[in-house]
């Protein structure tokens, strides 16, 4: 799963308040190389943009999980494919 996809995903568990379920927290072994917030004037910062492009489109999460910030529900990721199947009770 590319991080760009992660940027677009939000939890589809029914019953969440509007706007909830985003962003899903990525749980991995290692920390990210980017700062949590972009510094002002980041559009001009070539180095930052290059690293950003790399992280968004070239880095793939292979194993880990996505956690909903509101319900705490975890969606496992295996071989780069997140499993978003809901159980019968949830759907």
């Amino acid at each position, binding site marked *: *799963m590319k991080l760009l*996809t992660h940027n677009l995903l*939000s*939890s589809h568990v029914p019953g969440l308040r509007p706007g909830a379920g985003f962003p899903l927290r990525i749980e991995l072994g290692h920390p990210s190389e980017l700062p949590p917030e972009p510094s002002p004037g980041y559009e001009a910062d070539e180095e930052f943009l290059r690293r950003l492009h790399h992280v968004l489109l070239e880095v793939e999460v292979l194993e880990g999980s996505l956690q909903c910030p509101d319900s705490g529900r975890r969606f496992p990721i295996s*071989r780069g*494919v*997140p499993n*978003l199947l809901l159980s019968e009770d949830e*759907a």
Partner: protein
Amino acid sequence: SSRVVEIQSQMSERAVELLGLPEDRACLLLDVGCGSGLSGDHISEEGHYWIGMDISPAMLDVAVEREVEGDLLLADVGHGIPFRPGMFDGCISISAVQWLCNADKKSHSPPKRLYRFFSTLYTALARGSRAVLQLYPENSEQLELITAQAMRAGFTGGMVVDYPNSAKAKKFFLCLFVGPSGTLPKGLGTECASEEPHQAKFTNERTRFRNVKGKSVKKSRDWILEKKERRRRQGKEVRADTKYTGRKRRPRF
């Protein structure tokens, strides 16, 4: 199986065509029921990005093996489309949406699943974008059910049918618009059908009487001549046609 692949590939090409995407920029598309990534490959070939969803882990494994460009999600679209509002520039689906009509005892009713799918898809699509869903409807009731839930969810649009007169080549594409209603694209192979004349033909020929089916009235002279011609074609011995053929006999024959 290569014929199936060929058909899927053609339908993917047609679906992307029906999306009417801008030609100057790359778009992000959703592929519902992406399977092993055949349709996704076509999206990549057109220079666009895609995210695919499928309910079959086995099919997605094949897609991973094939190293498709798009990102893959193991999910049931009847549970909803798990994306933030307005994220996609378009959506295609090849031979997948009719599966939402299957009534599994454990799951929700098909109308509920269809509505959940369409309403969340509507949200995930950007304003002005389209969803083109190729499907094989089992019957007209199923088609109506699907279309009704799509309209309920806010979509406008309708069905585009390619080659409507061919049982083999006929294909259904549900074309849905997000936002103001656009003009529905024309189905392929429909030009000949619309050529039928709507006016009466004026001719100098003396019209011979024919019944509604276009066949000659039974026992008339025309009918007799046609029957004799048929028998000649079959190689049987037939008397020559003369001015006496089928003449009115005296009432007691």
